[in-house]
Each structure stands twice: as structure tokens, then as C-alpha cells.
């Protein structure tokens, strides 16, 4: 019995990668990490602190070609005799984990939110409106863990890093360009999120949202109509047709709380709603509600956070 964890280390060690390794450790067997990308060995050795006993790195693969990644992970799985393979359910995993499932004929549990109980694993279904407990019927299983479902736990020490030849083969997808906005916290990984909707009246008013996000160290998000009319970039759109997130804190200003919006955010631990309409459906899903004008409440909240940060 052995566990293999795939992480993408192109931009260093992201929090969701640490979660995946921690999750692997919690499964109880020896954990080997397989990674591609450019992170240096000192950085990768740190994965030992989260439970890895060894890191294998194939630096021949630079991109996101799902066929190459699948071959590398399959080769590693065979090399270590993995009975469980863990991914963090990010965009890479969505392209690679299902391919690996077919290649190894190993059942895939995608969107896991907890460690297995008996032989089932809990996942989100119906856009977060319910949970399902899934069982794998094959000998080898693949689990893709939803980001922010568990916290990284650090209690080991650095581990060896070995270079690995995963027989990646050729890439059939040619990368022409990558556009990653600098310095922003990727929304799916953010622990704190400040979000706003049509109640903000226009893109020129987003300064208040960004100010609050900045003092909190939060990412910004928005409702769908706001992205559709071009007030905010599309990648900020959360909900059923946008990104699904599960931060620790979701602050929603001027968003009515339509069911399709809730579908993307109802996994949040704590929800704060700011709305002028006492009947706004979002209050029913909120932990803390503020019946008031976002134009006044947001700056006030920003000041209160600043005060709190300077005295803590």
C-alpha cells in the first residue's frame, strides 16, 4: 500500500499542493510526491514537512499537456506501486486525473472534501447543495481533493528529492502564450474573499471592494451579471456557471443571493452579507448580515479592519 500525490510546482508550492500532500499523509501509507515544473530541490524537499517521504521530479515536462502529465504520473504510480493517487482538484487535475483513471482503470473520486470514511469518500454534488459518498470498485483509486477542504499540517522534516524520468513523450498541444495576472491571489485558493454585485452600480465603484480586499489580504470576486457586462474580469465570476469557491470568509456586498450564485459559494465557512434589502435571499445563507448601504458599510469595515490589524 502506497500513496502517490501529484502536485504542480510551477509557481512554487501553492497552498493546495500542501493540502494534497497532507491529505495523502492522512491516508496512512507512505507518501511519494510526483511533480513536474521548475521548482528547485530545496523548495521541493520541504514537502517532507507535510508528510512526503520522497519527491520525484520530472523536469522534462514544462507545460500542461494532459497526455504528457498522464504518462509521467502513470509511470510514477507503477514505480512506487501506488494504490491511491491524490490530486488537488484544480484546473490541471481536471484535465489529468480522468485521463489517468482510464489509463490505469482506477476509479476517480473528484471533488473530495474529506478523508475517506470506511471505503467511501465525501464529495460535493449538485453544485454544493448536497454531498455524496462515493465508493471506488477498482483496486487502485484516484482522489481529487477540493481546495480548502483541509488545512496543511506540518510535522515532518525535509525529504529527499530525486529526478525522475516519466517517459512523458511528445506534447501534442502547442503553447502559444500564457497570461497570468501578477500579484493576484488566485480565487480558488483564496481563504478570504470580498465579492460584489450589481448593487455597486458601476465599475468605477470597485475601489471600495479592492480597498477592503487589500487590508484583509483577500481575493476579489463578483456575481455573474457584473462579469457579463464587463465591470469585472470573467475569472472573478463565482457561482454555478463560474468558479466554485470555499473560502473561510466570503463577504458579499450588493449581491442578491440568487440560487445560481449561492451554488458557487455555499461551501464558504463564514458568509457576511451587506445588502440594502432586508428581503434579499442572501441573508438566509449568511452567518452575519448587515442591512445597509454598501457605499457606507464597505469603507467603514475597511477602517475597522485596519484598526484591528494595527492593534493585533
Amino acid at each position, binding site marked *: 500500500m502506497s500513496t502517490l500525490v501529484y502536485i504542480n510546482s510551477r509557481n512554487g508550492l501553492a497552498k493546495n499542493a500542501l493540502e494534497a500532500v497532507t491529505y495523502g499523509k492522512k491516508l496512512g501509507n507512505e507518501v511519494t510526491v510526483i511533480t513536474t515544473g521548475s521548482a528547485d530541490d530545496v523548495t521541493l524537499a520541504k514537502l517532507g514537512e507535510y508528510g512526503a517521504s520522497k519527491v520525484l521530479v520530472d523536469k522534462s515536462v514544462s507545460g500542461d499537456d494532459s497526455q504528457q502529465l498522464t504518462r509521467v504520473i502513470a509511470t510514477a504510480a507503477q514505480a512506487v506501486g501506488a494504490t491511491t493517487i491524490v490530486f488537488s482538484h484544480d484546473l490541471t487535475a481536471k484535465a489529468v486525473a480522468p*485521463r489517468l483513471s482510464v*489509463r490505469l482503470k482506477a476509479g476517480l473520486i473528484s471533488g473530495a472534501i474529506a478523508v475517506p470514511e470506511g471505503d467511501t469518500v465525501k464529495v460535493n454534488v449538485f453544485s454544493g447543495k*448536497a454531498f455524496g459518498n462515493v465508493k471506488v470498485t477498482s483496486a487502485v483509486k484516484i482522489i481529487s481533493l477540493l481546495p480548502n477542504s483541509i488545512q496543511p499540517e506540518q510535522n515532518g522534516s525535509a525529504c529527499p528529492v530525486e529526478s525522475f524520468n516519466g517517459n512523458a513523450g511528445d506534447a501534442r*498541444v502547442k503553447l502559444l502564450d*500564457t497570461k*497570468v495576472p501578477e500579484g493576484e491571489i488566485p480565487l480558488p485558493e483564496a481563504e478570504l474573499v470580498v465579492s460584489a454585485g450589481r448593487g455597486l452600480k458601476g465599475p468605477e465603484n470597485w475601489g471600495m471592494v479592492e480597498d477592503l480586499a487589500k487590508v484583509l489580504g483577500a481575493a476579489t470576486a463578483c456575481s455573474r451579471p457584473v462579469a457579463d457586462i464587463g465591470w469585472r474580469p470573467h475569472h472573478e465570476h463565482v457561482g454555478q456557471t463560474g468558479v466554485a469557491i470555499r473560502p473561510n470568509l466570503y463577504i458579499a456586498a450588493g449581491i442578491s443571493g440568487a440560487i445560481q450564485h449561492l451554488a458557487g459559494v455555499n461551501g464558504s465557512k463564514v458568509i457576511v452579507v451587506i445588502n440594502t434589502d432586508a428581503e434579499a435571499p442572501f441573508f438566509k445563507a449568511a452567518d452575519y448580515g448587515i442591512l445597509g448601504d454598501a457605499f457606507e458599510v464597505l469603507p467603514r469595515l475597511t477602517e475597522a479592519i485596519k484598526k*484591528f490589524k494595527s492593534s493585533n
Partner: protein
Amino acid sequence: MKILVCISKSPDTTSKIAFSDGNTKFDENGVQYIVNPYDEWYALVRALELKEANGGSVTIITVGTAEDDAIMRKALAIGADDAVRIDMAATDAFSVSMQIAEYAKSNGFDMVLTGKETINYNGSQVGAMIAEAMDLPFISLASKLEMNGSTATLETEIVGGVQIVEVNTPVVISCAKGMAEQRIPNMRGIMAARTKPLTVVSPTSNDVLTAFETYSLPAAKTACKMIDPENMDELVELLHNEAKVI
């Protein structure tokens, strides 16, 4: 260009989510099914646009039972040429994908399009599984797709941003927001859909790798605590000491 579009059903988003038989089955009582929005708005409409621009055909495929014919007719009304239903209740992404891959292989398509995910199981699995079974490249979560001869240029979501990639057909692509605009079927489309071919094919195998054992609903939220809009210090204090999130 021959395009195959994978169509699945999902409960209308306002449907009440409940379970029956000791929480082992989704309770379909009073549930209205619609074409999965990603499949309809993005995959199907983009396929139709490509056909309109370059010629070719658009076939839709569903793994499902006779009850799914209604959503297939809806997709035909939007403009697909013909439909294929693999006659099997869809339970597991692997078995669904194997059936679609088999059909696609023996009928020779230039492109297989799927939606980003189904909104009931949110697995985001089927597209990549079809690609692996056919040994084809897979472009995940494409938000733009342009064709130039047999070369596709696509914009896709990656962690924290977007990528522009190029790939030759045949290829499997999962489609996300941005690909196309929703089309509303018109009366002519609806009439024409009634007589378009809908072929029912028997499944060749039904190997499953996963099974949903039970379901549960989230615990009801405790009532929302209302806070004085003048007093944001109180909110900060609660977020720090009670909720412990800051």
C-alpha cells in the same frame, strides 16, 4: 468538419434537492430536467457556429434512457443535425466515457466537444476520459475556439489565468463560459427537431469504477446574526473571536 457534441441532462437549477430510499437515490419527484447549460450554451452553440462557417455536421450524443429523448430533441431544435443515444442509465463517468469513445472511434469525428461539467455531479471527468480512451489530445475548459483548416487555436483557463494553445484535429475539448452565446430555439427549429434522426444504440459494455452509496444534505444554517451597519468594530470582533476567520 464532423463534430460530436456530448449532451447530458441536469435538474433545472431551481429544483429542490432531496433524496429517497434511505438517502441512496436522488428524488426526481417534481424535478424538471434541462440540457446541461455548459453543453447547450457553449459546446453545442460553438459547434453550430463552426459548421455554419466551415460546413460539416453536428451530431449530439447522450448516454441515457428513453426519458432523455426530450432533452435531445431540445438540442436538435437548437440546430444539431442528428442525435445518438446510447441506451444505458448513466451512473459512472468511466462507463459513460467508454461508450462515447467507442462510438466516436468507429464513426470518425474531427472534434468531440463536451461541457465543462454536469451541474448535478460536477465531476468534470467525461471529456478527459474520452480523450484518453481515444488517445487524443484534450483541451480542458476552453473559453475560445477558432479553426483554421485542421488547426484549432484555443484559449483555456489555467490556474490563475489563461493560456493560448494550438492543436491539430482530431481533438477532444471541454467548453466553458466565453465560447459562445446562448441560442433560443425558434418555432422552425422545434418543428424540424421532431423529424431529425435520433438513433438508439445498445451499449457495448458497462464497466463501472465508482458508485455513489449515499447522499446527505448540508446542516441548516443557524439564523443570520444581524449587525448594526454603524458598528463594523463589532463585526470585526465577531469574525475574530467567534468565527475565528480573521
